[in-house]
């Protein structure tokens, strides 16, 4: 038996044969344009997964069936109009061409949306109770509206069928309208739509009946449910078993997708898309519990990223299919690589949740480490072809994300690549980020690059500081600087960085400075680094106060990640204080006094601590760049028109004979941004070398 044979058993869902057991489950892509149509970007994003071997794609998380379930906030797919049908045909053709199957999740989100834009919709819910995550108020739904929306579901399903899709998944998860009726927490009705079990089930059942009546028995209709809402007053696992068995008994449900946790609070929402702080498949037991009571196949997705893990779950018979959705965002060719025996070449999701955290801000879903994902339509490749042009000597300085990606892409193109890294290991700031508690999986990004650079025979020179001579000695045709930057502590001289009164978060995480006992962390950036260093220090036993001049610590950390930081920080009694700017630090005896100034009143207050850690972002390291700039043919300039259009840099066609070379700088050594930006810079620049 082959190592991953359980993954490659075909499965029958209704009349549909699916080639393997791996699903890209429904997620909000934020790619539908033109009023919620599945246009080119959308189609090519799914085509790439099908090309990569994915068995079933369920697209369009929270695709709306009705005009009063707002679509535009998250650019989700709009099934409330027949205009979608030809777009679905494009999508279905693209996926079917590669042997994949595609369905779409359809829903009415009820109260779980925003009302303050677009149509200024009045949101609807069984009992008009406010939803906290979206801060959304709503009206109590009326019978006429219920009837209309049931019809909208049926019409939406018809549009999916006419568009050639292989099925629909009714969303009864994440507190959408169907499960808002289910949950006594938000359904306080006493009419036929609330109260008893049968009454609470009625809306879902009527939707199911109407959909079935419209599409017949040959079209797949599934249902996504949660396995336990994790609210004391919510639906328990036993409730969910009862619900699943109830709908399964109708014979109208072809499959169940099961995930753990409700999500109408910030804290439960973080469970739904478990980030790297969670163990593997944390809620599999809930899906397995549902599988015990239903006949229809069960799909489960949540933190399943690795083929061995998927094989183990399937072989154990816990569920029938595994969702590997973020795994496909990180590497849409994951299945092809398993089949090719290239498991080592899989770019594995690390659970940074850059994708989903962007989605909750209404931004398009992107992968922290794979800049080609969802940019297929722009011509960014997942598989880099060898160049047909001349082979060049390329020297890259800096082994952080920008430098590693540049080295990988240039080497895939067939060039001879040397990568200098001053430290003893690759990774750059990723290595620092991975030092924090619960953030170690960040290092998975580096792990993949290490394997790839070794496979591609890149000459990686660790612990080698590249100066001007060392670079020119190699006679390069192209020099790429990706040297990053340094903590920006000198911005406010009163902090006393020069006298050593404050230290950086890097110093602490890297172990250059021992953790203090009583520490003030001052974080102006409000992203991961400040939270991470506070978490790190408190784990080492320090008493920590995390202070920011922003509106709250971690304000810029996404919706699925700040809750896991908060859980850890609150549990360790870290004090989080906002609206205070660090004015000055001075020494008093063997203690440090930090003077804080209230942003809004100007009032000063002091803290007496033994360590002050400042997180003020990164200052680009520009010295090497300016040393080389005027010796380069292109004066270090990147043609932004070409870069943004994903076209080759015009200067690549110039001859680089003699001592002259082309010079580019990418990543944080240009301006401090993030991992994705660094990798995107590198990919789009180097793919045409």
């Amino acid at each position: 038996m082959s190592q991953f044979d359980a993954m490659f058993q075909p499965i029958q869902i209704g009349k549909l044969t699916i080639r393997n057991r791996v699903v890209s489950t429904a997620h909000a892509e934020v790619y539908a344009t033109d009023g919620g149509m599945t246009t080119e970007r959308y189609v090519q994003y799914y085509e790439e997964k099908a090309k990569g071997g994915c068995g079933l794609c369920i697209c369009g998380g929270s695709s709306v069936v009705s005009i009063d379930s707002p679509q535009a906030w998250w650019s989700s797919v709009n099934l409330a109009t027949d205009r979608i049908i030809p777009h679905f045909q494009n999508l279905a053709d693209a996926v079917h061409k590669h042997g994949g199957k595609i369905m779409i999740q359809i829903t009415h989100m009820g109260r779980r949306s925003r009302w303050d834009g677009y149509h200024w919709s009045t949101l609807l819910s069984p009992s008009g109770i406010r939803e906290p995550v979206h801060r959304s108020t709503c009206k109590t739904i009326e019978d006429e509206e219920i009837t209309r929306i049931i019809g909208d579901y049926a019409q939406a399903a018809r549009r999916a069928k006419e568009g050639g899709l292989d099925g629909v998944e009714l969303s009864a998860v994440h507190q959408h309208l169907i499960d808002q009726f289910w949950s006594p927490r938000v359904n306080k009705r006493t009419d036929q739509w609330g109260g008893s079990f049968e009454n609470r089930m009625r809306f879902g059942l009527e939707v199911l009946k109407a959909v079935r009546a419209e599409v017949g028995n040959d079209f797949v209709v599934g249902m996504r449910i949660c396995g336990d809402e994790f609210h004391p007053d919510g639906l328990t696992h036993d409730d969910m078993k009862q619900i699943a068995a109830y709908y399964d008994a109708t014979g109208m449900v072809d499959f169940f997708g099961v995930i753990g946790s409700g999500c109408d609070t910030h804290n439960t929402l973080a469970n739904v898309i478990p980030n790297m702080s969670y163990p593997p498949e944390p809620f599999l037991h809930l899906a397995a519990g549902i599988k015990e009571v239903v006949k229809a196949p069960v799909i489960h997705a949540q933190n399943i990223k690795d083929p061995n893990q998927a094989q183990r779950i399937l072989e154990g018979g816990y569920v029938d299919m595994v969702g590997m959705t973020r795994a496909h965002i990180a590497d849409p060719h994951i299945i092809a690589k398993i089949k090719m025996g290239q498991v080592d070449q899989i770019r594995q999701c690390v659970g940074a949740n850059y994708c989903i955290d962007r989605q909750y801000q209404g931004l398009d879903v992107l992968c922290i480490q794979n800049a080609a994902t969802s940019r297929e339509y722009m011509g960014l490749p997942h598989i880099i072809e060898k160049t047909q042009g001349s082979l060049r000597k390329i020297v890259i300085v800096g082994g952080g994300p920008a430098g590693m990606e540049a080295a990988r892409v240039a080497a895939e193109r067939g060039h001879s690549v040397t990568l200098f890294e001053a430290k003893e290991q690759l990774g750059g700031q990723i290595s620092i980020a991975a030092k924090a508690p619960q953030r170690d999986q960040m290092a998975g990004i580096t792990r993949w690059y290490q394997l790839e650079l070794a496979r591609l025979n890149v000459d990686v020179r660790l612990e080698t500081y590249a100066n001007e001579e060392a670079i020119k000695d190699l006679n390069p045709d192209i020099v790429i600087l990706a040297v990053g930057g340094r903590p920006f502590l000198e911005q406010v001289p009163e902090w006393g960085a020069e006298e050593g009164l404050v230290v950086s978060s890097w110093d602490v995480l890297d172990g250059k400075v021992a953790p203090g006992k009583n520490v003030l962390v001052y974080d102006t950036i409000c992203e991961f680094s400040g939270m991470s260093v506070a978490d790190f220090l408190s784990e080492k036993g320090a008493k920590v106060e995390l202070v920011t001049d922003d509106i709250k610590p971690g304000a810029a950390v996404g919706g699925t990640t700040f809750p896991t930081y908060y859980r850890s920080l609150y549990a360790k009694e870290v004090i989080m204080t906002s609206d205070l700017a660090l004015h000055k630090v001075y020494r008093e005896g063997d203690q440090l006094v930090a003077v804080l100034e209230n942003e809004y009143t100007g009032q000063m207050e002091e803290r007496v601590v033994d360590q002050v850690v400042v997180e003020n972002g990164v200052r680009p390291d520009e010295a090497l760049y300016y040393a080389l700039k005027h010796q380069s043919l292109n004066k270090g300039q990147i043609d932004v028109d070409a870069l943004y259009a994903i076209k080759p840099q015009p200067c690549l066609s110039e001859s680089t004979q003699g001592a002259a070379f082309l010079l580019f700088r990418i990543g944080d050594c240009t301006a401090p941004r993030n991992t994705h930006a660094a990798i995107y810079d590198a990919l789009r620049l180097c793919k045409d070398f």
Partner: protein
Amino acid sequence: MLTSLMPWLLAVAILLAVVGALRRARLWLRGRASNVNVWAGIRAMPKRYLVDLHHVVERDRYISNTHVATAGGFVLASVLAILLHGFAWESKLLAWLLLAASGAMLIGAVRVAKRRQSPPDRLSKGAWMRLPKSLMVFAISFLILSLPAVGLLPEGFGGVVLAALLTAGIVWGLAEMFIGMTWGGPMKHAFAGALHLAFHRRSERFGGGRSTGLKALNFDDAQAPLGVEKPTDFTWNQLLGFDACVQCGRCEAVCPAFAAGQPLNPKKLIQDMVVGLAGGSDASYSGSPYPGKPLGEHKGGPFQAIVAREGKGLLDADTLWACTTCRACVEECPMMIEHVDAIVDMRRHLTLERGQTPNKGAEVLENLIATDNPGGFNPGSRMNWAADLNLPILADVKRTDVLLWLGDGAFDMRNQRTLRAFIKVLRSAGVQFAVLGNEERDSGDVARRLGDEATFQHLAKLNIHTLQQYSFRSIVTCDPHSFHVLKNEYPELGGEYVVYHHTTFMERLYRDKQLSLKDWVGGRVTYHDPCYLGRYNGEYDAPRQLLDALGIDRVEMTRSGFRSRCCGGGGGAPITDIPGKQRIPDMRMDDIKASGANVVAVGCPQCTAMLEGVVEPRPQVLDIAELVAQSLIEEETRA
């Protein structure tokens, strides 16, 4: 004195030779009956000797010229000597001819002696080191004997001394050449060889033909042994064939198992059979032993088990299980001996009578019996890999042009890529095809090579029965083993089909302009000939023509074509897994690397698996179907 002695010497030599021949023939005839046409064989023998055998010998130019001179000279000189000196014919012309014949023989003999000055390892030593001397003595003796007869020397020249010397020389020469020929000296090869060629059990091989399918055991004959336990279980003409061995060691030089240090040497194996034929031990064998097995420890006799049930017999079982059935030995044998037949005959006994198929062998055979495939996979999952391809199933469509035989590679993730690539090619060419789907069973190849003839015939009959239900023009397969079995081994069991290997089929599609191909870009490619496609079926050209059609920079390995070295994957060898000093696929990968190629094109799932099992870095392994599929000019299907 010599003149009056000569008729007697000749008569005694001939008489002794005849006695020896009868004695030898009695040993052969202990073997089982064989269905050969004796008279037709005898009539065809000279041509087989002079043409077919010579073609093989000629691969070594030096020795073929040497052999023509020596053997031709000897035969002519012997006939003339009998006429001139035995029957005392008076003819100056014949005397000149005898002079010329013995002169030619002398030249040949000198060349033999030269080859023997520092003989390659593959040549046996011992008595074979004496042979060039005997040849020279024979030739010189008759040369000198002829000189007075043609008038180049006066009669009585040299007097008694020369006469005595000549007498001694002639006695020596006749003893070696006439008596030794039938009593077991090196010259035995000429006598046994001639008869072996006449009574060869694969007469189809002569005249440029090919006969490579194993012969079926007749399970209806209750008397027939299940394979070969003791030498007399071979047919008489097989035994005769062993005796034809000239110990040139060409088989040894090409045997992959021998090179890998596994305990097999085809030459020694044949010589062991010769020992068994007459009884004795291998102590006097003077060639390379089986690697790791010292000489003198093994012995046997015509009625003793070849592989002893306890202790040591004629040879050990691991010698038989080391063979990959690659047929390199058979291909190289100038005497056209059938080593592989003999090995499989002996394996049949070990598997069918003793149940002693080593290592994973028993498990594989059990799998084949229980699941119809060697991997023991759920037989209902044969089509899992193609769930997204919508392949027409013969049970549904009933008739088709091409039946695509998937082989057990359908269960293997690597081979599934080859199958998918080939299906892409078929679809691009608009070929109407269908598959048997879950009705297909293993072809029986592995079972048969492992000696389990019963399971082979069972599987073959089931497949033949299934195929009878449907109508198709031809069978195409990506697996040379299935190809060989379906094409060459099913007919004996009643299944006659037109079968193509996928490379042959694709080459035809290309020639018929059904494929539009662009050049394949990806570096330098060498082609590894699968044994079961090349040596077993003679297809060397189509794969190369396809590569050329793709505009590929093709390089040849030193060992390619009919001399291709086995990947180590045939004959169940990876299953019986006899240890050696190195792995055969590693050696083959060294051949590939030495060619300077960065891609090795293959046409066999077994070769693919073996070569991909070599640790990286190494050239990439791609099936020709993959190369073709990558080079298809596809019409954009999306609007």
